[in-house]
């Protein structure tokens, strides 16, 4: 099976790795050419893939594979590559070293003192790995051979649009409304100082005014005469001014600066400067 460079990512030259040596541009180009040669020539997907391919040449069940023989096959392959001056990727060489080690362990009588897994265990594990990889390859092939969607099974060609109605339910309770209004109203309650100046005549204002005017009130004078200009009409402004002025006169009476008189219930209130 011919495979392109792209299909064999592991053998593709690694452009992002740090260069092993400093090459000048031409040397790099040369090296790249060699590398692409490697990829085109072998196209194995890593050492395990190569081992699996070699194992197939033994034409036995993978479970009965001779790992020793396999190691020899692999080492021969690597040797050939060296003869052909093909630069193998590092992991092929690492594998070669490992297999050489395994081979020597397999050939030597077992050392009872040696720690760790026996050579047989290692060989068995390699056989297991090859079998597992082979099984996964077959599984992949079988998976790809299934009745795949868009190849042998199809979905509805004219799906009907499901109208996604996004209904927004606004969450606002009466309490939110009240709180909002209270917030505004609370702000409002501090506002009278600003706007009630139009309609509220304060006692302080009245006091200041009466203090200035009382000197002129030698005779009994109707309280209404003391209302400030523009406040004598009807309605709220008059009521406010009247109340403030009356309160101011009470204060001045307490200070002993004027006298207040009312002849009858609801009759006009009159004031005058307290005679000295």
């Amino acid at each position, binding site marked *: 099976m011919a495979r392109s460079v792209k299909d064999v990512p592991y053998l593709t030259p690694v452009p992002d790795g740090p260069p092993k040596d400093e090459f000048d541009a031409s040397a790099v180009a040369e090296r790249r050419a060699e590398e692409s040669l490697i990829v085109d020539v072998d196209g194995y997907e890593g050492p395990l893939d190569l081992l699996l391919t070699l194992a197939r040449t033994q034409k036995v069940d993978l479970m009965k594979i001779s790992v020793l023989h396999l190691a020899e096959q692999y080492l021969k392959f690597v040797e050939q590559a060296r003869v052909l001056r093909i630069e193998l990727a590092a992991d092929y060489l690492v594998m070669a070293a490992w297999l050489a080690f395994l081979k020597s362990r397999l050939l030597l009588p077992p050392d009872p003192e040696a720690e760790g897994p026996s050579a047989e265990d290692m060989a068995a594990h390699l056989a297991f790995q090859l*079998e597992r990889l*082979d*099984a996964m390859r*077959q*599984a992949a*092939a*079988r998976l790809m*051979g*299934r*009745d795949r969607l868009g190849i*042998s099974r*199809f*979905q*509805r*060609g*004219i799906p*009907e*649009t*499901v*109208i*996604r*109605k*996004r*209904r*927004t*339910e*606004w*969450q*606002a*309770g*009466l309490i*939110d*409304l*009240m*709180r*909002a*209004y*209270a*917030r*505004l*109203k*609370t*702000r*409002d*309650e*501090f*506002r009278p100082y*600003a*706007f009630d100046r*139009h309609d509220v005549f304060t006692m302080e204002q009245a006091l200041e005014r009466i203090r200035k005017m009382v000197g002129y009130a030698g005779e009994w004078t109707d309280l209404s005469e003391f209302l400030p200009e523009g406040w004598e009409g009807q309605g709220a402004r008059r009521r406010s001014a009247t109340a403030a002025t009356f309160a101011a006169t009470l204060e001045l009476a307490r200070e002993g600066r004027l006298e207040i008189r009312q002849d009858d219930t609801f009759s006009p209130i009159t004031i005058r400067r307290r005679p000295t």
Partner: protein
Amino acid sequence: MTDLTDSDQNDPEIGEAANSPDFPPPPLEQQERMVEAILFAATVPVTTRDLAARMPHGCDPAEAVAKLRQRYQGRGVSLERIGDGYAFRTAADLGFLMQSETIEHRRLSRAATETLAIIAYHQPVTRAEIEEIRGVAVSRGTLDQLIEMEWVRMGRRRMTPGRPATFVVTETFLDHFGLESARDLPGLSELRAAGLLEARTPDEPMRVPLVERDEDDDVDPDEPAEDLFEDD
């Protein structure tokens, strides 16, 4: 490892011989299945001609279509003739299933809540009045949103210069808030009793009203909204 071979291949009996004129056409029942599959997967209505071209030699798509149509009679989907072609369509009476509703819960923005509160408490109220009470300009979007939610609608125009539009709350609004009428909105004294009026933080900046309040005085004689709150 057991044998992993061709369990998943297409049935060669139907597939392979399909377009050879040397083989008799598949039975009508099979043709019906074929039409069914083709129409299901097709992205446009398919004519009987197209069907014939795709089906094995000697098939009678028209007959298969007729049978299939019958089969789907009264089902959840029906085989319909569309122009020259045929296509499956959801049964008309089940159209309501073709929409899925997702309900999204969202909170009203502060601006919207305040505006709504003002309209509820002061209705009918003009935009200028809302702005005066809130102390900030009311964006068109806020009112639009409330109108779109059907909580607010336009009331009568105010009989003052410029004849400004007024806003009032709707039945839907009353429904949502469980009120019989806007008069059932709690008054200021109740808000205070509920501790809602103490909420102001002392360092909250005071806002200067945009407009003079006086203009409110002479407005709507039949519904002085402020009455609701003359509690002190």
